[in-house]
């Protein structure tokens, strides 16, 4: 691709990212997912004994890992899948398919917007964490690459789901999967606390791998385990392949 073409392509991707971000942040439901739920969840996990153990000295860091994981799944998977499904139903995607915007530019725009919104959500969660006593460990920055990998993985599956199902079905399935992952995917309830086979299966889910790696970074200041990175990368590869295969403008 010549320099001129690459610049045009970059300009279109950025225009699409700016458009997607604007629409995402205007949506009340999205703001609830991006700002209100992370703050609320963090406060519930750190200020009550409903789920977490009050005697745990790393309670806030552990809760923050859970909240960041929830933010990634809700923004990159649930919101992206639902928004894309409804863009297809309204014909907005069909129209974009007639403009110079290419499939990869649309995808780049959506990913960038999702990363921005997830980053915003993570920032709100971290700021709330600091207010309720989180003191970042030395290696806490390991969370950043894992947040990026997790966002890419869940965004790939969000796009795959939007390509596979009709808009109404995407709405139901994306919300259903979100809740199942939260409860049984090693996010709110740790994999070790899940019974038998459920725990064994959950360990292979991207939600568990993301939460585990974020917990390592935020609680221990440690690099993620090879297994977590491998599980997330494998889900990313399969999700990207499925979304590339199922994507359609109309």
């Amino acid at each position, binding site marked *: *691709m010549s320099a001129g*073409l690459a610049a*045009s*392509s970059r*300009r*279109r991707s950025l*225009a*699409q990212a700016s*458009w997607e971000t*604007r*629409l995402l942040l*205007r*949506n009340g439901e999205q703001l609830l997912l991006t700002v209100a739920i992370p703050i609320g969840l963090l406060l519930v996990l750190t200020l009550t004994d409903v789920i977490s153990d009050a005697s745990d000295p790393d309670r806030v860091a552990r809760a923050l890992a859970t909240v960041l994981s929830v933010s990634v799944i809700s923004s990159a998977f649930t919101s992206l899948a639902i928004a894309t499904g409804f*863009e297809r139903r*309204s*014909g*907005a995607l*069909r*129209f974009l*398919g*007639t*403009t*110079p*915007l*290419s499939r990869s530019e649309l995808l780049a725009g959506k990913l960038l917007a999702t990363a921005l919104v997830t980053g915003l959500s993570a920032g709100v969660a971290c700021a709330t964490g600091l207010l309720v006593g989180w003191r970042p460990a030395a290696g806490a920055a390991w969370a950043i690459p894992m947040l990026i990998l997790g966002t890419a993985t869940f965004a790939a599956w969000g796009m795959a789901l939007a390509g596979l199902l009709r808009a109404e079905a995407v709405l139901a399935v994306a919300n259903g999967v979100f809740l199942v992952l939260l409860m049984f995917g090693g996010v709110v309830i740790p994999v070790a606390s899940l019974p038998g086979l459920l725990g064994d299966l959950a360990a292979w889910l991207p939600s568990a791998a993301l939460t585990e790696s974020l917990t390592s970074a935020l609680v221990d200041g440690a690099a993620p385990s090879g297994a977590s990175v491998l599980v997330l990368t494998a889900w990313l590869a399969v999700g990207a392949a499925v979304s590339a295969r199922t994507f359609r*403008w*109309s």
Partner: protein
Amino acid sequence: MPDPAVRVEDLVVRYGSRAAVSGLSFDASTGQVTALVGPNGAGKTSTVEVCVGLRSAAAGTVEVLGTSLPASGSARSALHQRVGVMLQDGGLYPSARPLELVRHVAALYPDPHDPAGLLDGLGIDPGTRTPIRRLSGGEQRRVAAATALVGRPDLAFLDEPTAGLDAIARRSFHDLVRELVGAGTTIVLTTHLMDDVERLADRVVVVAGGRSIRQGTVAELVGQVEGVSFRGPMHADLSGLRAVLPGDATVVEAPPGHYRVDGAADPMVLSAIAAWCAQHGIRTGDLSIGRRSLEDVVVELVGDL
């Protein structure tokens, strides 16, 4: 003569085992308005979708602005920079406001029109904060027109652009299309409104059953033959009327209840029709003298299939 802006040859489009388009061929000349007309389900929208890269052809050749379809990569982007599309329905972000949507679409093109000026020209207040979903159907069509035209296209596909527009908005739209053509834009129009076609089209392609059944200018399709049209009861026995008409006049019923006597509309013919109606107790309605309308021609052509 320049190459046609759109060249479609033996196009076949399938939905599963059903063929929506089966061997359609037509050219759209550069700088002209080509209208695709025909009944619902004739294959017009499917054809447009192939021409704008939204659908694959099962067979046939489609060339748009010199690019063979399907195009991908930089060839696709280069082609789409020169083509504007107004989809038959939807295509707009419901929660967006008109100006922000048109601005976003403008940002995807290298040399766009001014979005606010374009919306204003189409009768949409650029400053409106009303989301698109709350606009009337006609206003939404005008926003869709703005998104199709903001990229300053050399070729615009307008799929039923005047559906839902009131008479005044439709006339404004006709003026806009004439302006575009005056500036060298090629237009491919699909519509059910023959008024659009008669006022705008340089060439008409009548599509039915997925193929072209007649092509030509409006004058060529309508013909020069004058005649008399009238309405009466359905399936009247016309043998008596035929017997009293002059030798070169013909009478047909198409569609049922609509009668057309072709030939010179002179007093002899009118007298013969009036006498026949009186003998059979037929009350005629909407009697008119003149050339057939384009709608009559299209209805006859489609009805003959």
